[in-house]
């Protein structure tokens, strides 16, 4: 017997089988998905790929001890072995006194607009390739531009069933891709990439991928090393989101808060950033690639205000961490794969705009760095930042002079949040991620000159 065609039945079998072995609580997390990819190399199509992305993850609790097992093989024998493995691990692993219970939630899960598009599933690989060829054409900014990339279309169906009564199913489609463009003029190299992703085929901006990647590669020609200095840094919306989001994801997730490695431990109600910073999280944002009707434990989340006027409003939690930090379960459990356990993580952040125009921000920059698609990267729970600039430009008197190379920003996550000088009134919305342009004052810039 195989469960290939009925993963809901598989998940039910896992829960019942685990309980029959003697487990106190059981959870089955099942993913069924497939993905078609088209690889681009040197401006032409190189490979078609069609793969399955399916797997089962099991959590079993016995006397407060945890056992987990996962498999991609859906035969009855393999599933039974997987349940047995999880149960045996739960029997031998030490109990966790902090464990309360797997969640129960009977709130109806909302329908999210544009979460699933049959056109994404139905598109023929050759039809998809024709779209990609148009993107490549846009990227061909010079005759000898070198263009590489990858495009994927697919869908995933998620089933979560646990012994406490959770029984959820959800399907999401996704289409996305990126192109990297390299232009050489002698020893001078201009290199850039751009991507887009969507849940809906008609909203996938495939031509823009090529156009932006090509234009940016051309602008990256003539890069120079600069002197070490303290300078203001202006970030485009992509860079703003990529800088602000990871700091918040570590800073307010209840698992790290409980372990005291979060950046913002004991800071609810306190100022963690400049007054201008306002951030909310919308799990149900229509068409958001990170939106979801329920979290990775089956709990329906809430829209949350996370930061208001620079003041931290709450932490994000899941079933394990909510009681540990004395908050409600906000439904933010997230798994990196079907084989991983859940941890709290944000869905789709909206970083609110300011009042000044982005053109004014640039015009008023007397001397500084402009980052385009180049976040100031932080690393896990480490508050020290030492981040290379991948796509940055030297600006003088509001004029973009040249791209910089071999340049590193040295700072801390706390400084980044507190040095927000201004936010633009214009925002960009990338797959539900919304952010304005952001001006940071006085950052240490290490140059290679």
């Amino acid at each position, binding site marked *: 017997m195989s469960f290939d065609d009925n993963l809901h039945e598989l998940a039910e079998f896992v829960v019942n089988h685990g309980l029959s072995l003697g487990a106190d609580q059981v959870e089955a997390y099942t993913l069924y998905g497939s993905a078609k990819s088209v690889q681009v190399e040197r401006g032409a199509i190189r490979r078609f790929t069609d793969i399955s992305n399916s797997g089962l993850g099991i959590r079993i609790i016995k006397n407060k001890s945890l056992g987990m097992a996962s498999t991609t093989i859906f035969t009855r024998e393999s599933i039974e072995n997987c349940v047995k493995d999880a149960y045996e691990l739960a029997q031998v692993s030490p109990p966790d*006194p902090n464990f309360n219970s797997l969640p129960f939630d009977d709130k109806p899960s909302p329908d999210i607009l544009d979460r699933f598009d049959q056109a994404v599933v139905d598109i023929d690989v050759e039809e998809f390739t024709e779209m990609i060829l148009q993107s490549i054409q846009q990227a061909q900014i010079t005759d000898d531009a070198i263009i590489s990339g990858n495009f994927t279309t697919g869908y995933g169906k998620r089933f979560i069933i646990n012994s406490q009564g959770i029984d959820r199913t959800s399907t999401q489609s996704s289409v996305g891709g990126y192109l990297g463009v390299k232009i050489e003029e002698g020893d001078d190299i201009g290199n850039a990439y751009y991507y887009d992703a969507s849940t809906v085929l008609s909203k996938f901006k495939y031509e823009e991928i090529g156009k932006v990647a090509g234009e940016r590669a051309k602008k990256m020609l003539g890069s120079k090393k600069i002197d070490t200095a303290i300078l203001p840094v202006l970030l485009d919306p992509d860079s703003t989101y990529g800088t602000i989001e990871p700091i918040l994801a570590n800073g307010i997730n209840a698992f790290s808060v409980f372990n005291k490695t979060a950046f913002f431990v004991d800071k609810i109600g306190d100022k963690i950033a400049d007054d201008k910073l306002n951030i909310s999280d919308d799990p149900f944002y229509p068409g958001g690639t990170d939106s979801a009707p329920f979290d990775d434990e089956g709990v329906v989340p809430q829209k949350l205000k996370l930061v208001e006027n620079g003041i931290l409003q709450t932490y994000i939690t899941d079933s394990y961490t909510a009681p540990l930090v004395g908050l409600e379960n906000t439904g933010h459990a997230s798994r990196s794969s079907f084989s991983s356990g859940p941890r709290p993580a944000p869905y789709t952040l909206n970083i609110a705009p300011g009042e000044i125009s982005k053109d004014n921000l640039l015009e008023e920059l007397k001397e500084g760095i402009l980052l385009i698609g180049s976040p100031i990267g932080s690393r896990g729970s*480490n508050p020290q930042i030492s981040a290379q600039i991948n796509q940055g430009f030297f600006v003088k008197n509001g004029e973009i002079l040249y791209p910089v190379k071999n340049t590193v920003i040295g700072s801390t996550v706390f400084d980044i949040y507190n040095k927000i000088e201004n936010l633009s009134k214009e925002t960009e919305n990338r797959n539900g991620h919304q952010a304005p342009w952001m001006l940071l004052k006085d950052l240490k810039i290490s140059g290679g000159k």
Partner: protein
Amino acid sequence: MLDTLEEIINKIQLSNRDFLDIRYGYAMGESFTVRNGRFDSVSNQTTGGIAVRALIDNFWGFTTIVKTDRESILKAVNKAMKMARAGSKYTKQERIIGDDWVFEGSGSTKIEIDPREIDKETKFDKIVQTEKTAREYSDSIVEASSSYQESHSKEIIVNNKGTKVSNETHVIRLIKNIVGRQGVKMQNVFDSTGGAGGWELVEKWDPEKEGLKSAILVEKLLMAREPPSGKMNIIMDPSLTGVFIHEAFGHACEADGIIAKNSILEGKMNKQVGVEGINVYDDPTIPNLRGSFEYDSEGTKARKRTLVENGILKEYFHTLETATALGMEPNGSGRAMNFNVAPQARMGNTYVDNGDMTLDEIAEITKNGVYLKDSYGGYVVPAKGQFYFTCQLGYFIENGEISDMMGNVGMSGMTLEVLQNTYAIGKEWEPAFEGTCGKGGQWVPVIGGGPNLGVSDLVVGGTN
């Protein structure tokens, strides 16, 4: 399984120019993590399935399935061939695989003590005691964690050129990560041991000693000076030399990037890329290292690769396709993370070979700069030749002497400059960087290593 795959591939009619391979992959492993006194992951993982690649009329079709019966495999073969034929009209380049490289045999990581025979309590004890010792050392240790991982994978590869290979790889690892905090200042120390082999590689790990060592270091780092900023001379320890050579140079030597014209080393074969005394190798045949294996995921026998000899670029990392395209020998670099992905040109155990200087001698000629230790990892943009890597700690070098400790920091450099800017090579190389390398969404175990290395003009991104 080998017989089934062979029978299927023998039935398929293809022209001499075309290529087809079928790869069976099965892997199982277990991993445990204890964090702040409680187990937050106790997990067993199994993956398995079939991958089929068809290269027909210069175009690749690739598909995977989780069923392993004969009929399902045949269907997958036909699907991959159909995809390749459908795509051939889109390609602009000639793309073939030569007939000359046929491999038959079987390989396996040598194991003295099979970890599957060790009881769970013994494995738990290693990590529980490591974590507990570190956590209880002082109040400023806010998070201590330790993990145990073992994986056992098998690949069977057949292709229409005649290759028939079966290969098993066993990898084991113990990890510790200790985080200290004083107010807004945080520092962490990460370390691991293990490699390709069995329990014998981690048996000697003394949990109390390891936990204590890291906790003491974290305490010192919390009191350490802030790292400097700007362009300066750097001495790297073997761990940092390892990640440096991996990021700065190894990735640029991957021949799929060369063919895609996405490497700064394209066109540099047999040209001077570094100072005369520098030699760089990658050797997956060294026993027991994390990036060791006998056959790659295309069935090619792995061998030592000479990347740089006396500063001259000598070899790339090859798959069957890249070796054919560039008229070179394949060297067993086609690695796939699991059955669900296609092989790419990858590194194994990459290292800079020994020179003849002691650390004190290198510090003396460095005069002023920093001595950086213990890598956290890094990344590179091979097309641009710009790389970045990070260290866990370092020391100032003042007037030729190693002085005060400093905290973690990141560095940036340019691939074509750094090997030319190497001014000192230490006496003894160590495979000190035990990493997991990411490329195209695939993660494979690797080693980076070397001796202490003195390099000028790297950019250090500190706050002072």
